[in-house]
């Protein structure tokens, strides 16, 4: 069993390496990618089904780091939580890998892509299985790096390069806090081992280092999970191929934050401040993202914002759940979300591949005549909206219920904030799901507005992105990405008449659909993972119904886009995320200006200090040359002056 846990982490990494080496032949690459995914899923299943999951946290990985006054055992753990999450990740990745084979079949960089996905998986599984803060950080950063590679897959397209750049920079800025936080936590315990960190005796009174560490970790998580104000990288990340989006959004990177905080939950349970920060961030994010999602004009961006709000729901549950409930509800929503979000993305990718765009205007009614795809999307959206009996309903209500318990119980105001936000989000989610469904399902009554025209109209509204000079700094993203340019037209243009979907690919989608329907059963294994409170269930059902009806009525029975009811300026603003991107660009420009200043200082101030004596030496040399002419008298003068000087010095200093 222990070997299996190790293998689950090791195998994808090796698969990534092998895939990179075997990039010459596509067949080998596919075999490696899919095969490894299959094996990992099997192993994960084995671990999960192990009758009594061994609650051990001392699985040796690469051996204890030989350090003085710091113990870094680098252990792995395996318990119920980790085994469930591992299984989910493995399954989702398997589906994605299978789907990718079809989706990127003409892409010359398929091998690199698949290998990166494997490496990404390794990172995520490392985070899941790690019982050591250092290892967690390793997996965390590896995921970030792979996301840079995946989002920037079509590096020919400037928008893709920019999106990848943005994603990595925003997350690594947040990782400043992450690194500091993890270091602070491990310094408290003089060890990076998770158990030591959790069991270090509490200091009496407020433990400043602990609070700082926990808040820093929250900030780091906010970066990767796209909480406000770090949220804006996620929609742009849609520049990556759809499988990459599915991977990043569904089970891995974005959700990793939830898992890390769940692991550290015992510490958070003791620290009010950190949890309050988390609660506020989560509440704001889930509502704000829901609103933005409603206004999106692009399917993938809509899904991206829905991801933000869903992840915020998980974190909200963590922030509000009372200690006795623990982190399980959040994790269970993580699982459910993984299923339906993966389903939705793959479905969207499928649709986009067939239609050739992801703009909702273009996709309007395109799902109608494709029964299978229509079904899949329906299940996905319904689950996202939280319609029973789909998994989304159960997991979300488990989260809401946990928050309610906290609110009614020990947690108080903070929990109430979360609960309110949760209910609001439920309604919003239902609304935008309905809107999306109506758009996808009901064909445009008056086919006057061609998609291109629609695009143009928006292009006019936001203007294109002018070319940027090369010497601009890393941060300098002065131009917001044109949101309608997503859906990687590069790839889709590459195979405009895309081959009809292969059976395996569609099977992978339906497997996810099945999981979305029956996933609750899988969660049953995790005690406390499904716990629907009657009150919360009723309230949320009402809210869902209300949301659906609102959206349906606004779009008068699907003939129009419900979002058109919004004032156009608001909508336009929402499409570009209310200029968050520009704000980032401002920060970047500021740093760049600082950098230029530094360069100037480096040349003219720091370097002047050594240059000055050199110049002085030259000038003195000139003077000297003028003084030293072969005039004997001057020599005599020198002699006498010298003697006087020496005499004075000598006689005065002697006594």
């Amino acid at each position: 069993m222990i070997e299996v846990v190790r293998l689950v982490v090791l195998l994808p990494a090796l698969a990534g390496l092998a895939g990179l080496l075997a990039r010459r032949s596509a067949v080998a690459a596919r075999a490696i990618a899919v095969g490894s995914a299959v094996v990992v899923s099997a192993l994960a299943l084995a671990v999960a089904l192990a009758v009594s999951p061994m609650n051990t946290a001392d699985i040796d990985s690469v051996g204890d780091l030989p350090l003085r006054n710091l113990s870094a055992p680098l252990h792995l753990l395996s318990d119920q939580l980790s085994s469930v999450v591992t299984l989910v990740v493995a399954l989702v990745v398997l589906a994605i890998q299978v789907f990718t084979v079809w989706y990127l079949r003409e892409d010359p960089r398929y091998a690199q892509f698949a290998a990166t996905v494997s490496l990404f998986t390794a990172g995520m599984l490392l985070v899941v299985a790690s019982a050591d803060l250092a290892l967690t950080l390793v997996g965390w950063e590896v995921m970030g790096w792979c996301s840079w590679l995946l989002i920037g897959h079509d590096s020919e397209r400037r928008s893709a390069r920019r999106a990848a750049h943005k994603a990595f920079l925003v997350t690594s800025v947040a990782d400043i806090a992450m690194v500091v936080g993890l270091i602070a936590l491990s310094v408290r315990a003089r060890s990076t081992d998770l158990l030591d960190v959790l069991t270090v005796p509490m200091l009496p009174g407020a433990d400043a280092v602990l609070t700082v560490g926990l808040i820093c970790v929250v900030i780091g998580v906010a970066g990767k999970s796209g909480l406000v104000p770090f949220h804006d990288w996620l929609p742009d990340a849609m520049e990556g191929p759809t499988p990459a989006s599915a991977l990043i959004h569904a089970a891995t990177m974005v959700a990793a934050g939830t898992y890390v905080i769940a692991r550290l939950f015992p510490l958070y349970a003791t620290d009010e401040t950190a949890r309050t920060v988390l609660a506020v961030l989560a509440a704001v994010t889930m509502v704000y993202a829901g609103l933005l999602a409603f206004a999106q004009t692009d399917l993938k961006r809509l899904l991206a914002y829905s991801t933000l709000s869903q992840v915020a729901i998980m974190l909200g549950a963590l922030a509000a759940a009372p200690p006795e409930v623990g982190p399980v509800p959040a994790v269970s929503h993580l699982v459910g979300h993984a299923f339906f979000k993966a389903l939705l993305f793959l479905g969207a990718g499928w649709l986009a591949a067939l239609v050739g765009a992801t703009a909702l205007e273009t996709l309007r009614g395109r799902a109608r005549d494709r029964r299978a795809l229509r079904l899949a999307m329906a299940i996905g959206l319904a689950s996202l909206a939280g319609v029973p009996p789909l998994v989304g309903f159960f997991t979300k209500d488990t989260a809401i219920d946990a928050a309610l318990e906290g609110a009614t119980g020990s947690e108080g105001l903070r929990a109430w904030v979360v609960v309110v936000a949760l209910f609001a989000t439920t309604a919003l989610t239902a609304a935008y799901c309905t809107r999306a469904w109506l758009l996808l399902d009901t064909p445009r009554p008056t086919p006057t507005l061609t998609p291109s025209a629609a695009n143009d109209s928006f292009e006019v509204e936001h203007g294109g992105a002018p070319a940027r000079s090369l010497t601009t700094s890393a941060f300098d993203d002065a131009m917001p990405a044109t949101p309608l340019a997503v859906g990687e037209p590069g790839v889709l243009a590459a195979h405009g008449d895309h081959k009809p979907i292969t059976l395996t690919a569609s099977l992978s989608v339906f497997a996810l659909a099945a999981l979305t329907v029956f996933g609750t059963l899988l969660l049953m294994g995790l005690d406390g993972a499904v716990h629907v409170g009657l009150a919360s269930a009723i309230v949320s059902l009402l809210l869902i119904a209300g949301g659906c009806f609102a959206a349906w009525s606004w779009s008068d029975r699907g003939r129009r886009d419900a979002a058109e009811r919004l004032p156009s300026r608001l909508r336009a603003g929402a499409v570009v995320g209310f200029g968050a991107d520009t704000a980032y660009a401002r920060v970047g420009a500021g740093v760049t200006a600082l950098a230029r200043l530094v360069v100037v200082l480096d040349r003219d101030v720091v370097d002047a200090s050594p240059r000055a004596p050199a110049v002085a030496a030259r000038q003195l040399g000139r003077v000297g040359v003028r003084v030293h002419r072969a005039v004997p008298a001057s020599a005599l003068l020198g002699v006498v002056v010298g003697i006087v000087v020496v005499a004075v010095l000598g006689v005065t200093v002697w006594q």
Partner: protein
Amino acid sequence: MNGVVIDVGALWPALFPLLGIIAVLVVDLVSPRLRQAPFAVAVVAAGFGAWTSLPGVLQEAGSSRSSFCVGQQGWFSSTAAPPYLTDSCFWQADSLASGLQLAASLAAVVCLLLAWPSTRTRADAAPGGGPMPPRSGHTREPVEAVLLLAALAGTVVLAASRDLGTWLVALELATLPVIALVALAGGRRSIVGAVQLLVTSLVSFALLVLGAALWFAATGSPFLSPDAAGGAAGSPVALDSAGSASLLALSVVFVVAGIGFKLSLVPFHAWTPTAYAGATLPVATFLATVSKIGALAALLVFLRAVAVLGTPGLVAIGVLSALSMTVGNLMALRQNDVVLLLAWSTVAQAGWVVLPLISVSPLGTRASAAYLLTYVAATLVAFAVVALTMRDAGVAGRSLVGYGGLWRRHPWRAGALGLALTSLAGLPPGIIGLVGKIVALRPVVSEGWVWLAVIAAANAVLGVAVYLRWLRPVVTSLDEASESVTVTSASEAALVAGGSPRGSRSPHNPPSLRVRRGALVAALVISAALLFVVSVQPDLLLGVLG
């Protein structure tokens, strides 16, 4: 027995040069047409001098080979001898002094080799043989040899002298011949150099004598011995001990100043570039090496006597050394004429030489002597290379560009030059130079003069800059070398055309007519071998000084 105890064995290092002088004169009398004979004799004499100073070097520390010692009895009929007279000697060569004597003799041998004439017999009249006026051309070789030997003898005696009389006479004996040698080179430049050297030396010598007189006034003893200085209280004119102490201080500073001229310390240095440029290369070499040894020997003799008085008075030396280093390096940075560059580097190195003397302790004196020897060895090699290059390339050998691509053309010569320059700069592979810097800085640091040490560090940087300027063309590659050679020839042409007095009036133009190549090679080999050996095992050099 009563009277002076004379141990001739101890005197040989000084006697051989003197005998050499006589021999040279005799030889010249017998067969005036032989040009090389005087130098052969001189080399033999100097060599024997070196040989006979070896036992003094090898004696264990503390002991010394003395001569002209006076016992107590017999001399002072009237009164009993003062305490400071108990068996004092006029000649005392301990290992340090002998080491300096040895170095002086060897350096003299190299200088003589550098001056070795090429043709065996003298052509009767050298009509327009260079700028050399024919009239002085006839007896040039024996005169050169005799003067060189005389100066050498003066230096050797200086190192071992222990009383005012010998000291003064030896100092002048070591100085005056060199002035004559500079003047002998002929040409206006040499005259100017000689004049400047002359007036400077005269004045500083006068003040030196004044200082000596003050010493005598303060101590009442003609002996430069610690107990004499210690017994200053009992001096005839002493108003009180404080007064005599200040007299003593005054004498010390006069002496330091007077010798500073010979060491070409700033501000007594003005003669150095002029004289070097005016003199022939061998004489310049002599000025740069043997004279410096003599000067330091004289200074050490005096300082070791006043060492008992403690060090603070010698802040003067610290200032002088800092000044010399800085000025020397700054000026050397601007020179494109290698001889001038070496002249200014002499000034700078003089600063390093006296640097350790701010602590008048055995440590300091030995350190200063050690640094001087490393400097002498390196400078000899450099001058030998310059002589060879000038013999091949003519005037171009005097300018930095003339050394372009030397590495490819004459690897061994370039290697020797590189070793010499890096030794002067204190960089490996010139380990000895590095060790010299360590030795020189040690007393400074140990006395806690950190500010002086930092100035020295800054000057080490400047020095590196100076010598790298010369090393750069040496290691440049062939193509650059070729073009630099063309540049050289062009500049040479310009010079010969009278563009600058350097070319046309240069005393060695063309030098290849005057100096024998074999001798140059021999000189180079000797000096380079010395430098290399001490570079591999610096203990040999440091051990010489006990």
